[in-house]
């Protein structure tokens, strides 16, 4: 479908806010290359359930595109109309199925060896519109607190090895009152700076203490039924005897919260959709709780851009070796304390990287604490870099001194 051929009627099936946005920008949509239009529509079609930060991103892009003269726009987006690919995909309906179009387009980019050129075009476009519409600074410095929970342990393992050059490593943290201090800090920040989807709590099990309802909660325990339902849908595709990854991806993309008994999930439709996406789009999030926490944090930071994030890693299930699987002797309920600690340590590092990608990074802080090892790490503007502190500290002292 050529962009020039779309009309207001084309968006009749879009949800109200998305449809209004499309109609407001119909002139722009009609003048951009089809792959670019599909990329935009993949956001517009779900605009009603995007987080505010994501909606602003879409709004800003349309504002930027509208601000360009026709010739400027054509020049800016010329890299998106790649020869050979447009022709192959010309019959696809990128208005009603933008996601499927983007998948097919991506596959075509790879097979035609044009993925690098496309990346360059995408980067150039992104740089240009971000220069015109810079991302806003956060209303308060961002803070992420990460707990490597009880049961995550390993002998002779150097915790926070990758993060140590970036902050202060505290060798002795007294655990008394630590959890209340963490949750109180998050609650106070949510009360002081109320933001929709601005404060989050993510847990690889169930929270050890009640969590303030001002925080958006995503927990492994709450989603156990949804995880099972998602896995059942995956198995149904596999056992259907036809299709493959493409069909599976389509089924997962079309899965709604209702399909998986989403009534049990807390939060509004935007949050419930986010939770479902963690399970349908994440790899390993349905199986390993450590992956679930890391990926959920990554997606929350990327999409919602929160100012407060509390993560709690808990032990994940043990990956049974082949001989135990074959012999049927493996304990399916067993957990892997050492592997979980290593996963969570890397997850901590990745969360720090992902927070650092957002605006306000120089003022942002990450506090990570291992309950079992009694060690902590703080990276932020108030924490000296590459320093080891050996004096005993409480979590309240850490949060007061370094945040």
């Amino acid at each position, binding site marked *: 479908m050529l962009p020039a051929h779309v009309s207001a009627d084309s968006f009749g099936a879009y949800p109200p806010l998305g449809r209004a946005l499309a109609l407001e920008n119909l002139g722009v949509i009609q003048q951009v290359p089809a792959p670019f239009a599909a990329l935009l529509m993949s956001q517009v079609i779900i605009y009603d359930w995007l987080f505010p930060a994501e909606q602003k991103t879409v709004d800003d892009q349309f504002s930027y595109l509208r601000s360009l003269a026709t010739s400027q726009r054509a020049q800016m987006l010329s*890299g998106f109309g790649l020869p050979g690919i447009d022709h192959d995909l010309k019959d696809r309906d990128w208005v009603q199925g933008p996601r499927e179009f983007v998948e097919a387009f991506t*596959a075509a980019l*790879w*097979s*035609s*060896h*044009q*993925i*690098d*050129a496309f*990346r*360059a*075009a995408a980067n150039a476009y992104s740089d240009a519109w971000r220069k015109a519409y810079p991302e806003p600074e956060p209303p308060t410095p961002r803070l992420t607190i990460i707990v490597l929970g009880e049961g995550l342990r390993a002998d002779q393992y150097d915790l926070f*090895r990758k993060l140590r050059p970036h902050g202060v490593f505290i060798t002795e943290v007294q655990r008394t009152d630590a959890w209340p201090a963490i949750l109180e800090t998050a609650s106070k920040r949510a009360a002081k700076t109320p933001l929709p989807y601005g404060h989050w709590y993510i847990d690889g099990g169930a929270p050890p203490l009640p969590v303030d309802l001002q925080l958006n909660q995503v927990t492994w325990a709450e989603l156990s039924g949804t995880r099972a339902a998602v896995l059942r849908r*995956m*198995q149904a*595709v*596999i056992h259907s*005897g036809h299709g*493959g*990854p*493409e069909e*599976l991806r389509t089924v997962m993309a079309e899965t709604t919260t209702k399909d998986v008994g989403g009534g049990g999930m807390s939060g509004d439709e935007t949050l419930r959709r986010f939770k479902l996406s963690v399970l349908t789009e*994440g*790899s*390993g*999030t349905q*199986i*390993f709780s*450590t*992956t679930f926490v*890391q*990926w959920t944090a*990554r997606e929350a930071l*990327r999409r919602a851009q929160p100012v407060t994030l509390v993560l709690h890693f808990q032990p*994940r299930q043990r*990956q049974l*070796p*082949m*001989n135990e*699987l*074959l*012999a*049927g002797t493996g304990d399916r309920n067993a957990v*892997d304390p*050492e*592997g*979980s*600690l*290593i*996963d969570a*340590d*890397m*997850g901590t*590092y*990745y969360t720090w*990287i992902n927070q650092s*990608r957002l605006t306000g990074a120089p003022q942002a802080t990450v506090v990570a604490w291992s309950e079992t090892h009694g060690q902590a790490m703080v990276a932020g503007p108030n924490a000296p870099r590459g320093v080891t502190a050996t004096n005993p500290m409480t979590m309240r002292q850490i949060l007061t001194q370094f945040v």
Partner: protein
Amino acid sequence: MGNSSSVRLGTTSGAISWNRRELLRSAAGLAMSGALYSFAPLSAAALPRNRKTVVVTFGGGARDEETFAPEGQENIPGLLNVLIPQSTFYTQIVNRGILGHYVATASLATGVYETFDNFASVPPHDPTVFEYFRRGLSRPATDAWVVAPSNGFNRIGESDHRGYGEGLGAGVILPKHLLRAAMPAAAGDDYGHLLRDNYEDPFYTPELAGNEVQLRQLNEILRISVDDFRMHALTLSSPDELSVYIARQLMQQLAPSLLWITLHDIDIAHSGAYSLYVEGIRRTDRLCVDLWNSIQSQPEYKDNTTMFILPDFGRDSDNDAGGNGFQHHRTGDALSRTTWLMALGPGVRQGIAVERPVESLDLVPTLGALQGFSTPLAQGKPLREVI
């Protein structure tokens, strides 16, 4: 735009190469190849042309952070201390093709960047090295074998190219498929996830018909009874250990001149569990040494075999916002496209690192030059330092 992209890839790849080179210099004491180019190929002298070749590829690359960088070296003691000192090591192998394991491995085997759907059960469209080898040297089917990790690789031994193709390819053994055929049906649910086809899309397992064919492979080719196979499998901790066991059986029973083994445990990284990814690297490191030791312990292979080890490609860097670090290889960034290759065996210089960038497509012409068969449709160039 394409040019600027290439420059950027090349520049970053160069930086990767430099880092790996410096790390190797400190870790393994390798000599660098600045003076190497003035040497005539060592093997040109008097080495027999009937030499054997074993190719080991990793499905799921391992990044420098977890391997050659200082913090990663603890994961690869075998590569660093045993194999690299005996090898010519290419620090910069660039893969410009599709970063999916089946299609990338097929590209390694054809010397052409294949473009089919990574998850489709289709043969490569260009002739494979096995077809070149068998036609060029008039070798029987028993002389070329592939041991591959998953059902998706079942077509890799033979292309659908009109000029080659049917009847000229390698035998393909899928150890997981053997396992399914040999184990009691009732045990299926207990090890179902073990039989899963791949980690890129962990819920996709194309079914292959014909357990009887697999059981015949066990009995007639590998000379293992089903009971012995089953008992041995119960002592192994991973599918790659099973693959190496099968490869050893092939070497003992048929001594193929061209043996290609694709390992896959590392690719559990797609599950997002970093500890399992590192565990996979350590196991792969150990299995590479085990294979080399097996080669040296078998008269048919000892002093007559060149072994090549290379990942099919890399994994995403921590710094590319489009990816999730080690977990995937989806961004197409320089780290995910750049990897390494080592060659070792008689006639191959030991302890040498080659800095110049080469392409993964260069493997097939190199194998042809080493064993004396032509590879007319392959697009790479022979690696002059090892032929």
